């Protein structure tokens, strides 16, 4: 015992929650019920009988699906435990997931997103009944027009990559409208642009030309000049790029592409450091997109739903996916009459909950607030870079001495050469401190990569703590590499043997596939073995009103 209690060490001695939780199919017992659907009234049953029983055998399901059977408490407890075994922004210092802009999402905005006046709206309601939600959509479009400088913005794409798709599709429609569709069969992108800038154009039928970085890490302007031609449909370029450098010659890139008749498409997924500083319009772009779940604070939701927003110049507005949201001065309405539109990229109008959140977030900040977001994110990033580069074995390749915008792609190549510890192993050890860690998209031009993006949400103390974690891990790599190599030790689980995941004899995407491949049989509980007994004889024998098929088992 020490008294007074000693100060806490840095990094802290945390242990992630570890419930050793079974897979849900191993839980529960036959007959247990988590929730009952609304009972059918006797009057309806008397009137129509059993329509399910009247179905032909070829389409009537003979036995119900073999789902687990759990009481409500047991479902809730299982998922609450899994939630505890997950680190999100709310509990971690989520700066280790570069390019993702893992900022804080204010809880009040979640309240709006969960309001019944949002959740209980049907997308095909009469416009007079949805004036509030249309107003939010229309106003958010105005905000994003101003932030990007573009003339119209659609909120329909459900993600950043879907917005890239929408933009590529509009590029294709534009060239087709000028009878240059078949001639312009190439799209140019850069290696440090998000991979969807290469993948989406391929789906749209384009050959993809990738410009590599020059010695300083900036995309090579001469390579672009060599690639641009009458075949060029568009340049799709992220800026700042995923390594955190702002391309100072971006307007020249646009000009090169315009000179050969191509369009310029700005991927603004990394806009968090440039809000109110510089815009797509001034750089000459024809199209751009934002990720509302990055820059505009909507939560990442474990991998979606996100939300994308595509902006275009007036010349391209006729190609936008429809409907657009319009305002006649007193009433908001949807304009479906868009003959040149590329059509739908998504059912209905977009990820409404995130549109509401992003609207509220901007309304809580205003112009000065957005600029402060950007400046703080950039300051945080350059401060954290200073701290991290004090760790021997870690470097920030390219453009030595230059400032970065909102993120940095670092390299552990030096540490790996000295210790044999690689970036993947550092990632596993990072889990022992409950921090995320993201490498890089492929190819790994930066060797042993890790990409870090602090955003505006974190304090200097948070950043110091984050840097201390990696200083400690680097020290362990030198003094006790086995500790790092066998990590994690204090996470929810221990080291995963991933070999089974690339072998079709062993991979299992579902519990049923796992049981089949391992020769295992389902545990009795929750496996529906009792499905054909008298309590649930078949779905066509439905319960009468007020009669529960099986009493909820405790």
């Amino acid at each position, binding site marked *: 015992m020490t008294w007074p209690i000693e100060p806490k060490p840095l990094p802290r001695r945390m242990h992630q929650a570890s419930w050793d939780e079974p897979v849900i199919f191993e839980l529960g017992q036959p007959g247990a019920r988590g929730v009952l659907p609304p009972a059918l009234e006797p009057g309806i049953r008397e009137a129509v009988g059993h329509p399910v029983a009247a179905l032909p055998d070829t389409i009537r399901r003979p036995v119900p699906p073999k789902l687990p059977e759990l009481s409500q408490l047991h479902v809730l407890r299982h998922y609450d435990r899994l939630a505890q075994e997950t680190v999100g922004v709310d509990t971690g210092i989520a700066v280790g997931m570069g390019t993702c802009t893992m900022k804080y999402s204010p809880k009040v905005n979640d309240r709006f997103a969960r309001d019944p006046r949002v959740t209980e709206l049907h997308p095909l309601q009469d416009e007079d009944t949805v004036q509030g939600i249309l107003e939010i959509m229309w106003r958010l479009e105005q905000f994003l027009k101003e932030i990007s400088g573009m003339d119209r913005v659609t909120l329909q794409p459900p993600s950043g990559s879907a917005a890239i798709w929408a933009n590529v599709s509009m590029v294709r429609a534009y060239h087709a409208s000028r009878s240059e569709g078949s001639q312009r069969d190439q799209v140019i992108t850069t290696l440090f642009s998000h991979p969807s800038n290469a993948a989406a154009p391929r789906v749209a039928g384009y050959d993809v030309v990738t410009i590599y970085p020059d010695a300083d890490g900036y995309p090579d302007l001469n390579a672009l000049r060599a690639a641009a031609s009458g075949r060029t449909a568009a340049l799709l370029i992220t800026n700042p790029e995923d390594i955190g450098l702002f391309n100072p010659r971006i307007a020249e890139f646009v000009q090169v592409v315009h000179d050969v008749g191509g369009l310029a498409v700005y991927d603004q997924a990394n806009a968090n450091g440039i809000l109110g500083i510089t815009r797509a319009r001034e750089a000459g772009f024809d199209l751009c997109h934002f990720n509302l779940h990055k820059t505009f604070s909507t939560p990442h939701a474990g991998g979606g739903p996100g939300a994308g927003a595509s902006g275009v110049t007036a010349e391209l507005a006729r190609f936008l996916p429809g409907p657009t949201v319009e305002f006649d001065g007193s009433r908001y309405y949807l304009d479906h009459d868009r003959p040149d539109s590329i059509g739908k990229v998504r059912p209905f109008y977009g990820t409404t909950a995130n549109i509401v959140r992003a609207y509220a977030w901007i309304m809580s900040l205003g112009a000065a607030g*957005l600029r402060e977001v950007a400046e703080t994110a950039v300051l945080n990033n350059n401060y954290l870079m200073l701290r991290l580069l004090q760790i021997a074995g870690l470097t920030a390749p390219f453009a030595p001495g230059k400032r970065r915008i909102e993120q940095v792609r670092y390299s552990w190549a030096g540490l790996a050469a000295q210790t044999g510890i690689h970036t993947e192993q550092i990632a596993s050890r990072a889990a022992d401190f409950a921090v995320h860690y993201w490498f890089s998209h492929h190819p790994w031009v930066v060797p042993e990569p890790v990409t870090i993006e602090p955003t505006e949400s974190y304090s200097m103390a948070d950043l110091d703590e984050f840097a201390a974690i990696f200083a400690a891990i680097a020290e362990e790599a030198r003094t006790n590499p086995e500790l790092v190599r066998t990590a994690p030790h204090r996470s929810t689980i*221990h080291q995963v043997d991933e070999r089974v995941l690339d072998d*079709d004899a062993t991979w299992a995407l579902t519990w049923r596939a796992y049981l089949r491949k391992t020769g295992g049989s389902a545990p009795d509980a929750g496996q529906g073995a009792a499905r054909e007994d008298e309590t649930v004889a078949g779905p066509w024998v439905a319960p009468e009103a007020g009669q529960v098929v099986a009493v909820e088992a405790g």
Partner: protein
Amino acid sequence: MLAAIGASTIAELYADIPDALRLHRPLDLPQPFTAEADLVRHVDGILARNRTTADNLSFLGAGCARHFVPVVCDEINSRGEFLTAYSGHAYEEHGRFQAIFEYQSMMGELLEMDAVNVPTYDGFQAAATGLRMAARLTGRNRVLVSAHVPADLRSKLVDYLESDIETVFIAHEASTGLLDLEALDRHLDESVAGVYFENPSYLGLIDHRGAEVARRIHAAGAVLVVGVDPISLGVLQPPAAYGADIATGDLQALGIHMQYGGGLGGFIASADDRRHLVEYPSRLYGLAPTSVSGEYGFGEVMFDDRTSFAKRENAREWTGTAAALWAITAGVYLALMGPAGMAEVGDGIMARARYAMDRVGAIPGVRIPFAAQHHFKEFVVDFGATGRTVADVNRALLARGIFGGRDLTGELPELGETALYCVTEMHTQADIDRLATDLEDVLA
């Protein structure tokens, strides 16, 4: 912090941005509500202008419907850990991996298929990718698609496939409303990669001839992709049972609020073999052992062979942020409902829909075109003989607090003056009786 990094101003950090590209003025945005209470007042004021399906009586469906959302679904998807996580690694987000693996597993039981993806954006994207998978599996470049899918899906498919796949729409029989198998045969040849139809159809019709459709398609060497409403699968055979190679659909009915059409997630399922799996663009989570006996781990299956993260333009389409939280939510829903719940909810929807068809069809001048067919959740109502337009009827219903069915005159004009009505487990007998009474009144 500035001093630590040796800068005197923030502006120095932006040295790479040329002056000509700088915005030399503040953004033109409204004055903010920096205090939370003021923001709440502002947003509440706007939302107050909405009227909801909870406060009115809605019969709108067409791919998004008001179903029962168990409170526990909202409880779990509101957990900050899930809500604010992203796509991290197997350790710090172990719980999220397990929850999504369990989602895949429960969907696998519902669909009787061994492979299910981490969801894509929505049912439209799932259908479009399902058809692209069919093209990759066969090396062919035409797809046949039922004409009775939403017009918006037709639009999506053409946009998404047109670069190298021709989409041909196959008519339905005017008398039965079912897919026209003769028309299907006429178009089915060795250029056809895949065929897509929905069962139940967009118009709510249940097709019992799935095995016959599959036989013809497979004889031509094509892939059968079936779109299915997952909430029907407590009572209806899953597509795999009648020979579908790929099943797709939207998760919205499984515990996800409509959110003005924003609450969507797309599932894709198939047999579990390398040939199929390598064609998925999506993330696919799998179960794996750890260094500790008895401990479950999870990871990504065949990530490097197919995803755009690994292969850029040489990938299968692309991967990105999609609908993971709705996967967790749908998993919670299926776990709460269990086999009996899914059977009961399907039975309840079919019975209510039949009751509504009978009541509405009994109104003078109103006709239910395909009344003889088995229906699930949705049905067509023909107002042609009433001399009134659907728009006109819907306006009159709206004045009575009823949201009438989706007006089909724009997207399926060949059906005449028709609307698509949707009935779910949320409708009571009194709701349906009220619709019938008010409709009769309006049409009198």
